[in-house]
């Protein structure tokens, strides 16, 4: 890992991008790293495109400005691929982790592409909130595999901690689904 590793999540309001960014940060903290997790705040509406960020470092983080060239871009919904901001700051070395039915070779954007059908997993196990498939925790399993930035076990622990208060069964479903996304991820590099 470079001394600073930055991740940008693209989601839609209600998909849990911010919570995902925070849980990922927590997972890295369990491995004694420092993190910031934040969102790009504006007029939040359910379904509107949103961005969230995780910044990970070995030392205390002194940067407080936005993230412009993230090492990893996580796309929580394939419909977001059409949005220009998704490709901002992207280059050939950027890890791009996408929730889609397609395989990496079908995705025509630069970067190290990996794909997983997280929506299918969410629908199968029933991770739905008010009718929206919440794929944030599932995608964290994929991020762990695609980037190797954090161990899947740390992600699972962080999910348990981050969802504390929900019924045990719901939490374990999320944990298992993250593992499933980790296993089912297709990597095009």
């Amino acid at each position, binding site marked *: 890992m470079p001394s600073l590793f930055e991740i940008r999540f693209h989601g839609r309001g209600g998909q849990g991008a911010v919570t995902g*960014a925070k849980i990922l940060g927590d997972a890295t903290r369990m491995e004694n790293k420092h993190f910031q997790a934040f969102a790009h705040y504006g007029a939040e509406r359910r379904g509107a495109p949103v961005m969230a960020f995780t910044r990970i470092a070995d030392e205390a983080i002194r940067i407080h400005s936005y993230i412009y060239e993230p090492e990893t871009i996580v796309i929580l919904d394939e419909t977001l691929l059409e949005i220009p901001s998704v490709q901002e700051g992207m280059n050939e070395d950027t890890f791009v982790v996408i929730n889609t039915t397609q395989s990496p070779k079908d995705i025509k954007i630069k970067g190290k592409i990996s794909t997983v059908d997280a929506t299918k997993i969410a629908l199968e196990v029933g991770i739905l909130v008010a009718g929206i498939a919440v794929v944030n925790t599932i995608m964290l399993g994929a991020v762990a595999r695609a980037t190797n930035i954090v161990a899947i076990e740390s992600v699972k622990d962080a999910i348990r901690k981050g969802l504390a208060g929900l019924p045990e069964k719901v939490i374990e479903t999320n944990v298992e689904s993250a593992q499933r996304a980790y296993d089912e991820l297709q990597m095009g590099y």
Partner: protein
Amino acid sequence: MSKIVSVTGNHSASWAARTAIPAVIAAYPITPQTTIVEKIAEFVENGDLKSEYVRVESEHSAMAACIGASALGLRTFTATSSHGLALMHEMLHWAGRARLPVVMPVVNRSLGPPWNIWVDHTDTMSQRDTGWIQFYASNNQEVYDTVLMLFRLCEDPKVLLPGMVALDAYILSHTFTSIEVYDYEEIIDFLPTYEAGHWKLNPKDPMAIGNIAGPEYYYELSYAVHEGFEAARKMIPKVEADFKKHFGRAHGGFIDTYQCDDAEVIFIALGTMGEEAQLAVEELRNEGIRAGSARIRVFRPFPAEQIQTLAQKAKAFVVVDRSLSYGHLGGVVTEIRSALYRSGQTIPVQGVIAGLGGRDVRHTDIKKLIQLGFDVADKGEAMPDIFYGLKR
């Protein structure tokens, strides 16, 4: 036992309240402060915090309720931001002049119109003269620690002043990091229970606060507030040293300096920009450029002497204000120039306005500004104030 929690800057403030256990908390929600008081309400509701939580209909009322509670000799806490702080303005003077040690985090946000919820220091800068101690924090742990330090400082019988800690909207208020928090039992040596020593409202010994005082007394009472600030000036290093002794952390006292000892150009800013500047300095140092960063942490009482000391070795200052006093300059650069004029120091002080209304200022921008400071140092004269990044 102390523990590590992953929280936003706002929740760092809520946790600090939970640790210090104010007797009374009266607050009104406003974006982006809302989650501070939301979390506190949750703590109170769950029984994790035994405070009287007073719901009020405005920020003006929130501060009025805090004034009443504090006058009863109780530890008192509130929080606000932007327009909410502006609405409090009258009561801020009241708390300051009545010498009531209310502690308040303020999330720095712009004022409208237009509607804008992002970081800007105009709100707290506009309250400079209300008799409140002002700290500016640069990270979540510092928000938490400074609230505890403020209770200790403000409640000191020689100080007896209200105090605010400002934190940048979203950059801190809504950004999660991990911080260390404590239970009250662990900090009681640092922050004892508040006992109002001088006076407090007591039905058995009735008194009036703020009754009429004519021209023969008012001036002296204003000076008494000023003396409180001078007492705070003496206390701040002691409080910080004691905090470090107990918890192993300090945040730089009045001014958090970085690589200033042999710096030719020193970059000065408040809040998160002041911390990010360290990164710019580090990168410039790697290129052999002698830059330094000085983050002003305490704005009232203003650290004039420390500024004068910094100016003894440096060749130029670059001062960024994240606020604008329309028709003149930024508040920070004005104070710095005033301090140096008083001591007869003539190094050029370059004024810069940047980052208003949440406009991002990166360490790469700060590097450019510091490099500009070297041009200024060579010329021996500051340029007209720079509106950095302004689209014309």
